[in-house]
């Protein structure tokens, strides 16, 4: 039985092939026609729908709410920062510590930033998702240590 089957396999496959080719051809023709017909028929512009769906109203209110949420959070953060810095300063004054140079002073030369950002740039040019960003930043921070010449240490970070 199997042998006669094998003898017939050519016939079958020939039939199958012509069948399938016809199928594919008809299918392509049908679909192309369908899609193009539908596309033309269905799309239309109806500006009355905006008012009907309360489009303007929803949009304006929503944007206002988005803005106010983020503004509120932003104001809170600004206020928080001030409060924290104030409390730190008070503490220091009490304990008679010498106030260290303000963070701004530290940034004046820009060299450090340049170093960090160059390093970041080098890395980022090869990175592609959020996690990598974070990992990289961590790496940079870890590598950055007082004894390393400002640029040297950063350039040699092995890329993964």
């Amino acid at each position, binding site marked *: 039985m199997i042998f006669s*089957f094998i003898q*017939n396999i050519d016939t*079958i496959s020939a039939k*199958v092939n012509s*069948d*399938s080719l016809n*199928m594919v051809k008809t*299918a*392509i*023709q*049908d*679909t*192309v026609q369908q*899609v193009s017909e*539908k*596309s033309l028929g*269905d*799309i239309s*512009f*109806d500006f009355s*729908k*905006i008012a009907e*769906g309360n*489009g303007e109203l*929803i*949009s304006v*209110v*929503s*944007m206002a*709410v*988005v*803005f106010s*949420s*983020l503004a*509120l*959070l*932003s*104001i*809170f*953060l*600004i206020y*928080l*920062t001030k409060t*924290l810095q104030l409390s730190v300063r008070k503490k220091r004054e009490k304990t008679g510590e010498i106030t260290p140079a303000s*963070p701004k002073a530290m*940034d004046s030369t820009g060299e450090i*930033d*340049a170093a*960090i*950002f160059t390093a*970041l*740039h080098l890395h*980022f040019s090869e990175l*592609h*998702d*959020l*996690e990598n*960003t*974070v990992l990289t*930043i961590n790496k940079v921070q870890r590598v950055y240590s007082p004894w390393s010449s400002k640029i040297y240490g950063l350039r040699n970070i092995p890329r993964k």
Partner: protein
Amino acid sequence: MEQLLDALRQFFTYSGFYNITFGHVAMIVVGLLFIYLAIKKDYEPLLLVPIGFGILIGNIPFVENIGLQIGIYEQGSVLNYIYFGVLKGIFPPLIFLGIGAMTDFSALLSNPKLMLLGAAAQVGIFFTFIAALVLGFTPAQAGAIGIIGGADGPTAIFLASKLAPEFIGAIAIAAYSYMALVPVIQPPVIKLLTTKKERLIKMKPARVATKLEKILFPIAGLLFTTFISPSALPLLGMLFFGNLLKESGVTKRLAETASRPLIDIVTILLGVTVGASTQATTFLTPQSILIFILGAVSFMIATAGGVLFAKFMNLFFKEGEKINPMIGASGVSAVPDSARVVHTLGIEEDSSNYLLMHAMAPNVAGVIGSAVAAGILMSFLLHLV
């Protein structure tokens, strides 16, 4: 023998070769394109590879509803069970949990006013919403389509699952496609709307955020945003929860699990089923094509919104305090691609102008912004209107 041939022929009528249509071929080509872009061009590969292969899986032709439980829309199939997590909006909040656990909000903490740029860029959402209404979509569908402008995959899928489950596939594909294409879409818009002088603005280096600030941020973030828009709770609750796990300093192992195995598992399952949901027989409609076009416009408007608002903010800042308006474009989110795009543009103009950290602030704010917007749209379109 005759019987055998009959059986073979009958089996053949159930094969993919027999049931193929032009739609299947077209979608398979799209799937292959996604995979190609991911591997060759490195566009968002963690999403485009699963979605691309999912498109292949979803477009193997077969005969539906004869009890074989193959297709994603057939009850009882594996894909259908996994798709449940997409359809019910369960996966997106879990992805947000992981994103929260790996996002460093320092940039935002050190310059909170940049958060407004993340709000401004959401204008793309509402423009698209209105455009979708005009084109004849129902308000709920229009809302779901609009969110593509939020440039945030999980948010888009979440809102689509609530407002227009019939379009989840199209909306997700559009959102991820354009997120992948951010390096192509944004630069011309940014250049059009800014002068060379503006693009050369250097910003002061950001200060370092303290540990306490980092711990308080997710807590304050949750309370402020969800008190205003409780519908954003599923997304923002998880985002800020993940971030607290990261910043608390005492739950490191939970943060690590949330940001590696948990988010990876959900990404794999979400990606492949979102891809598979583009089954040609239900996906290839004029609406899908319209959604795709609207998505592209949406991204451009959002970019423009961010840039223009940055220029508007500059009116209130004195010289030396001004922000580089290009970072407004990062407000669309698409973390971190759009921040990188802005950084690259900055370098092009002046090789010493490092905008990356500054651009990260509106970038992460954009995530929060579009989640809030999604919450508001849900309230309006599911209940209030």
